[in-house]
C-alpha cells in the first residue's frame, strides 16, 4: 500500500516538473510570454511539490479542520483557476477595447487620406 502511494507521489510530482520544463521550453521559443510563463511555472512547481510530499496538504488540512485533505487541494485548485480565468477576461476586455479603437482610428485616417488625395492642399505658394 505504501509502495503504491509512493508511486503516485512520484508520478504526480514528475508531471509537475514536466509541465514546468515544457513552460520554460515554450518561453525559450517565445511561444509564451515570460509574464504569463512566470505564473504557470509557480503553479507547476506547487503541483510538483504537493506531488512529491502530499503530507503538506494533510498538515494544512489538519490545521484548518478539513476532515478529508484532498478536498482542500481541489478547492484551492479551483479557486486559483477561477481567479486566473477572471483575470484573463479582464485582460481580454482591455485588449478588445484597444483593438476596436485601433480599427476605428485606422478607418478615420483612411477617410482623411482619401479626402486629402481628392483635394490636395495648395502648396504652390511655398518657398523652395
Amino acid at each position, binding site marked *: 500500500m505504501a509502495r503504491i502511494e509512493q508511486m503516485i507521489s512520484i508520478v504526480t510530482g514528475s508531471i509537475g516538473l514536466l509541465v514546468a520544463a515544457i513552460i520554460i521550453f515554450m518561453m525559450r521559443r517565445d511561444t509564451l510570454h515570460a509574464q504569463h510563463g512566470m505564473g504557470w511555472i509557480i503553479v507547476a512547481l506547487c503541483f510538483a511539490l504537493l506531488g512529491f510530499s502530499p503530507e503538506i496538504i494533510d498538515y494544512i488540512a489538519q490545521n484548518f479542520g478539513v476532515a478529508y485533505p484532498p478536498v482542500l487541494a481541489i478547492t484551492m485548485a479551483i479557486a486559483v483557476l477561477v481567479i486566473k480565468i477572471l483575470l484573463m477576461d479582464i485582460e481580454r476586455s482591455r485588449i478588445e477595447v484597444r483593438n476596436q479603437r485601433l480599427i*476605428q482610428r485606422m478607418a*478615420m485616417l483612411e477617410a482623411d487620406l482619401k479626402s486629402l488625395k481628392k483635394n490636395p492642399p495648395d502648396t504652390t505658394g511655398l518657398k523652395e
Partner: protein
Amino acid sequence: MTVILIPAFNEADVIADVLGEIKAACDFPVIVIDDASTDNTVAIAEQAGATVIPLSAQLGAWGATQTGLRYALRNGYDTAITMDADGQHDAASLAALLEPVSTGATDVAVGACTQRGSWLRHIAWKMMKQTSGLRLEDITSGFRVYNRKAIRQLAGWRATLLDYQDIGVLLLLQSKGLSIVDVKVPMQPRRNGKSRVFHSWVMVVYYMCLTLTLGLSKRKFAHRYRSPYGAH
C-alpha cells in the same frame, strides 16, 4: 456645425435613396461609416456625395456609430445626428428632433416611435426600462441627436466596451449628468433586410441577457433613495 452619421452594413440597395432623401431635407454633411460591407455600399455612398469611413473589421452598429462620433469630435462638430441606413428614419423629422438640442434644452434627443416593432420588442423594452430605471419610450432607437458634451462622453474608451447603442449608451450619458429626452417621430418599416438582433431567438436571448445584466449593473441607485419631499 452639425453632421449626420449613418452606420451601414451591406445597404447597397437602399443607401442611395436614403442619402438622397437626407440631401433633399437638409444641407448637413453626411458621413457613412461602413461596417466592413461585402457589397458596394462604399462606392454608392461616395457617389451620392457622402464621406465614407471604411472600417477594416466589423464592429457592429454601435462600434460603427462610435467611429462616426469620434470623427465628429476630431473635426470639431458640435452636433451629431445618427440615423439608420435602412430607411427607417424619416429625414423629414430631422428638424423636430434637432430642435431640443439646438435650443440647448437637452443634451440628447432620441427619436421615439413606440408603434413599431413586434410584441417581442415591446416586452424587451419593458424589461429594459424596469431593470435600468431609464424613463424613455424607445430605448433601442438609433435615430438620435447628440450635442458636443454627449459626443465627447461617447467617444471615450468606456463607451467602446458597449456592444449595442441602447441601454449602455443611455446609462453612460445619464451617469455623466446629461439630459436625454424623447421626441415622437414617425418611422418607416425597414426597406432592406431585417433587424440585426430581433431575427433569431438565440440572438434575442443573448441580447436580452446582456442588456439586462448591463442595465442592472449600471443602474442609478440614487433615485431609489431620493426623498419624496424634494432635494434638501
